[in-house]
């Protein structure tokens, strides 16, 4: 099979060209302060290619923060449905394998009991270009969940750094192949691999817990005092859930006047205080730690029952954004310890 390479400057040029096309949506890494965000680009967006990991995941490219799902007008003859904006082809550049690994998980969810054609259509039209990792931090734990710093799952193209200035492009899917063929001019250079380019191996990120053991403990310990101990400092925002590549809850809201309206799918999060509040005023998850317990239990237990996979890719984003100091890896490791103790 032919080998494909792309330089940083060509990648920037390609993304800018695509982003200038109004018939497409392009997402790429943009710097703000000390951090990088995967953001929607236009032809003028300044890309940042020198970063460890983006604050947000690639989730919002495919599962937008908000999305109209119904539009209507009231006429004297009755209700008239208005057309929804078309779902455009899109390119997402700049995630890591732990971003892309969320794609099959999200696909399972959105094609489960109800086929969410908004998500599924976008998924059909997206080309995901992933950067294999060259750096890690203490929050990374992809390997504990079957991932890898150079894993291909969910990507269409995987870029592996071979020189200071460029990547080798690995075709992962048919979509990826077609993308490279269409933009062959950008992938034509040959880059001689340089020495000393850092590359992460699986062993660089040791496996730190066993998820099946974690699940076992969660199933039996809903009321265990550990939950309160590890999550009492959670202050119940949605920072962790919104940057998470696999958190997928949404709310439906209506914005309407007497004559017209639009119904929107809108991100929501189980960590927010009002998520489970009943009309009666009762809230079955009235405390912060109860809500955080839900987040972990859903990911590490309930999700497995439904889809046979942990709903966490080990990207560590939630821990990085949480300024209350709630750290998912510490907590899951603690649970694993407890579970091990119980086994003996």
């Amino acid at each position: 099979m032919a080998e494909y390479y792309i330089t940083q400057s060509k990648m920037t040029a390609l993304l800018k060209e695509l982003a200038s096309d109004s018939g497409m949506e392009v997402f790429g890494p943009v710097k703000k302060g000390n951090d990088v965000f995967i953001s929607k680009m236009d032809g003028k967006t300044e890309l940042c290619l020198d970063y460890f990991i983006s604050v947000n995941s690639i989730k919002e490219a495919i599962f937008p923060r908000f999305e109209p799902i119904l539009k209507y007008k009231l006429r004297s003859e009755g209700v008239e449905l208005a057309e929804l904006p078309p779902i455009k082809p899109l390119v997402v550049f700049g995630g890591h394998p732990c971003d892309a690994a969320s794609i099959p998980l999200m696909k399972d969810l959105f094609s489960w009991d109800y086929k969410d054609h908004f998500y599924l259509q976008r998924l059909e039209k997206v080309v995901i270009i992933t950067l294999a990792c060259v750096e890690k931090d203490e929050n990374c734990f992809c390997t504990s969940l079957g991932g890898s710093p150079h894993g291909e799952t969910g990507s269409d193209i995987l870029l592996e750094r071979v020189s200071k200035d460029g990547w080798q492009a690995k075709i992962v899917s048919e979509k990826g192949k077609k993308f490279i063929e269409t933009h062959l001019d950008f992938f034509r250079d040959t880059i001689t691999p340089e020495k000393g380019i850092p590359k992460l191996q699986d062993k660089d990120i040791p496996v730190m817990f066993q998820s099946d053991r974690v699940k076992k403990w969660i199933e039996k310990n809903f009321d265990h005092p550990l939950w309160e101990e590890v999550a009492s400092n959670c202050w119940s925002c949605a920072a962790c859930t919104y940057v998470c590549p696999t958190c997928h809850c949404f709310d439906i809201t209506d914005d309407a006047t007497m004559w017209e309206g639009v119904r929107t799918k809108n991100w929501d999060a189980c960590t927010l205080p009002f998520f489970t509040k009943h009309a009666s005023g009762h809230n079955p998850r009235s405390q912060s730690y109860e809500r955080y317990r839900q987040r972990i239990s859903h990911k590490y237990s309930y999700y497995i029952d439904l889809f046979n996979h942990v709903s966490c890719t080990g990207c560590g984003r939630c821990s990085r954004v949480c300024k209350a100091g709630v750290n998912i890896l510490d907590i899951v490791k603690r649970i694993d310890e407890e579970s091990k103790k119980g086994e003996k």
Partner: protein
Amino acid sequence: MQELVKKAKELIESKEVDLLIGYQSDGEKGAKPLFVKNTQQAEKLIFNQYCLNNLVTYLKRPDVKALKKVAVVAKGCDIRSFVMLLSENQVSRDAIFIIGMTCDHVVSPDGTGENEKCTTCKVHNPHLADVVLGAPVPEKIAKDKPVHYAQLEKLNAMSQEERWAFWQEELSRCIRCYACRQACPLCYCERCIVDFNTPQWIDTRSNPRGNFAWNIVRALHLAGRCINCGECERVCPANIPLMLLNQSLQEEAQEKFAWEAGYDPESQPPLTTFRKEDDEDFIR
């Protein structure tokens, strides 16, 4: 911090408090909140320049409010938020034991250098506490000297159109996670205006309209109340410079109403009172 651990153990052992909220270390250059309920946990308590969290924010939580007495480790700036809670009748003084820490400065949120807020600090030495720990730190700014926020200058110098463009760009990253609200010691409403839907005042979509309205309302509800702890901005995952909004309103309160929040629990927050001779140049 022998002193702190000792005091904490005393408070826990004597059952004077049901819970103590303090800091534990989080890596080499970090600290995070610690909920202490027994003397063993108290061993982990620390205090240093990485202790950024304003722990007073936990006092607004229903489960913490339900306890008989709670101790909290607090720096001068954090205590300013406690003073506001007192003057707004949100806590009872008897239910809280303040362990005030003298404090020269904390690091900036990215872990380097002195935190911007510390350059305007007037309370290096806790102004209201049940016990003060740590060596006294010389105060650098007189209580009655108006505070000047250098970072506002750039914004104030922009044209109206430039400011509009600046904020639209910044706020486009707001994902409506409400971390700013949850971390703020003074955003204590049981039901925030953004969670009301009959009628719905704030568009809950993370679109330009919703993000603009949300950030207007959050800043406005802190007008005359914000004590410049900087938590909202620090916890914002989108790096939105929220303190520019808060500080411009602090500046306004200072200029128009000679008011700085969080020093005196007996004084009246400016939006709960008025003077007949208040400035009204902007009214026709």
